């Protein structure tokens, strides 16, 4: 069942030989050393492993790596451009919207998905949009503040 796939990872063309069934999460963490994508629960409940596939947030722990063939994958390491933070990252740092920081990459990418679908969400919509991403430290209040700030900063569609 050897399979070779081609995809774009953080804006670079990549090739990967898959020898067996593997999830995108562990391919990213082991083969590509992209450890910003976290393992939290392994069953898609927590969102720590969220990445973007063709600009949509997905749970990489529940995604078969072979499915990204021909697609564009962005991890937290590839979100900023030209050495600059993405406005969502900037807003998370500015608002202290994190404590231990383990859920943060997934949270930021989930927020990215939310703002792509709805660039001007109100606080209720932000809460609903991030409902399936878990944070144990209780940074929720500031995460909502950060996403609100990012939405304002990104107006004009960045």
């Amino acid at each position, binding site marked *: 069942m050897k399979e070779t796939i081609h995809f774009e990872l953080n804006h670079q063309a990549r090739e990967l030989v898959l020898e*067996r*069934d*593997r*999830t995108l999460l*562990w391919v990213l963490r*082991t083969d590509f*050393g*992209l*450890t*910003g*994508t*976290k*393992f*939290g*629960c*392994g*069953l898609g*409940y*927590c969102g*720590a492993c969220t990445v973007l596939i063709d600009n949509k947030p997905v749970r990489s722990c529940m995604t078969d790596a072979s499915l990204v063939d021909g697609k564009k994958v962005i*991890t*937290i*390491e590839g979100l*900023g451009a030209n050495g600059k*933070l993405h406005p969502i*990252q*900037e807003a*998370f*740092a*500015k608002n*202290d919207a*994190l*404590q*231990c*920081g*383990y*859920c*943060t*990459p997934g949270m*930021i990418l989930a927020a990215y998905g939310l703002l792509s679908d709805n660039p001007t969400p109100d606080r209720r919509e*932000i*809460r*609903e949009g*991030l*409902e*399936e*991403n*878990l*944070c*144990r*430290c*209780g*940074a*929720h*209040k*500031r995460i*909502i503040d950060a996403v609100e700030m990012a939405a304002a900063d990104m107006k004009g569609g960045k």
Partner: protein
Amino acid sequence: MIKINQRIDKNISGYIPDGISRRQFLKRLGGGVIVAVAISDFSDLEAAVLQEMPTDLNAFLRVSLDGRVTCFTGKIEMGQGVVTSLAQMIAEELDVQLENVDMVMGDTDLCPYDRGTWGSMTTRFFGPALRSAAAEARAVLIQMAAEKLKVPVTQLKVENGTVMDSNNPKSKITYAELTKGNKIVKTLSEKPELKDPSQFKVIGKSVKRMDGKIKVTGEAKFAGDIRLPGMVYASIFRPPSHESKLKSLDTTAIDHIEGLTLIRDNDLVAVLHEDPEYAQACLAKINAVYDTPDSTLNENTIFDHLLKMAPEGEMVAEGGNLGEGEGMAKKVLESEYHDGYYSHSPMEPHTALAVMEGDRMKIWASTQSPFGLKSEVAQVLGMSPDKVHVQPAFVGGGFGGKSNNRQGVEAARLAKLSGKPVMLVWTRREEFAYDALRPAAVIKIKSGVTSAGKIASWDYKVYFAGTRGASQFYDIPNHKTTVYNSGWRAREGVHPFATGAWRAPGNNTNTFARESHINFLAAEAGVDPLEFRLKNLKDERMIETLKAVADKFGWIPLKSPSGKGYGIACGTDAGAYVAHMAEVKVDRQTGHVQVLRVVCAQDMGLVINPQGATIQMEGCITMGLGYALSEEIKFTGGMMHTRNFDTYKIPRFSMLPDIQTVLVKSKDTNAQGGGEPAIICMGALIANAIYDATGARLFRMPMTPERVLEAIKKS
């Protein structure tokens, strides 16, 4: 009083039990001004705190050749923000820019011994020692500057790491210039004074997290993010229950797979492979037969079991005569409160990477206790402690759970047996099964209230929650507090799995029972629950804290149940005072409780970083919603049925109330705990609000919709 020993140069190695010696330290770190610091006397602390106290608490502080200041401490950063607040204290006393302070945390080769990061002790006890060390380093540097500039010490001032002549600002020299080319170790004849709060420039100022940027980019390295050449991932074969006995084990299906290593060492059965998922898949092919005894113990029957297993009680507080008090009472209320088991559930599961390098074991681990891990590994592997090196990594949430280092020991055993670098990342199922849970507990209260609304008697018995928060602080003439099992662990046969410290250990359970009961007494007396508390309190700080929260909340006197859904609770923890008020909405059809808003006032003494303190309060309030309402561990004996976040419901965005916090201006000039106090009231706060909304009395946490419905039916 906590006495602070701080010495420069002399005898340092004499009081550092396990970390590195002064000589080793100087050799490793080269030149600069170096100050070592230690706290040694905790004699005045209450017993409950003493139990979790380090035997010693140390740090090295170095002003290096480039003028940067580095603090080497065995404390760790797990989200609570001490990486920032400790740096603030150093910057303040040394008069340097915060950006010029570097923190090296939890490296057992570089940092002096520290027992662990828990108990809200970093700022409270370590902080003052660190400030003294910084003040001492500053005094050394000023003395050197006085010699260089030929100006008396009293005429010098320091700004941003530059010492200058007050009368002639052009005559100046930087810390970097002073330390250049030197290895300076000086002893002062007098202990320097700490700055008076009126002089503070950095302490008390809100500062953003110093680790914020690297945590939003994915750069921050947690233990699982460290990668070594030839590294393999371990999957450990686990029994179905803690009580299971292995009868037979058949590994033939995976005995001859290329690249796969099977390890069998007494109780430890594991497979190692470079692909963690393949290791897991191979593990599933092992056939084992276990003998698992039947058990009737579960989340509902546990409370009778606990009462049966209770050891002799220990009286921890007593005054007056209970019988007399009950005689004076208009009404005597007797209630029993139950609290379940809770998981710490950090988003980062227990993780460790271990590798043998020559004769040394090197470990990166998610741990609240790097030195604890070091000695555990040394003991289990029969190695000399100086051959074990625990390296620092960010910790993805701890809450008490990562003072348990089982995963680090497992990884080290596997690394030694295989000769390979071994990464062990617990699955979420392992995390639930091998976490040291917050213990289930029972509290019995019998208490009388007079027709004048005064509490006349208070007979309090706590089983298995522990002492922290058990002693009440109301002005009650006749009272007795008895603790059955003082800690969070208990003898074998009590709990079906490991138990341990969980954020503000014991105090969540004790405060739930005490503050619920206080509200029931207020209701019996027909008095507003805030007024009732104020009437029965003499402690000025608690009164101030309650008034502060009431003011912010806009409390209107009420006779509960008023239908408004207002709750109130207060308590003390880690030297701090907290008072909470809340408004909830209860769905009488489903039993669902929505907390609409929570206001919290906290008197925590000297506040180092108001922003950091506020964030901890918000975190406590948010996290506390879970144990109050939704987090439930289900089990049969030692078999854990709760395995992931589909059934273990930690707080999520939909549960978030509007949160407001107040830092009460304190008369206390010492810093108190900040990472735990604001979580202790969440159970009683919500229980009291539910009662106010519906008249339903809740005696059991978590207050799930089913339990709320049942209580509504009974009311």
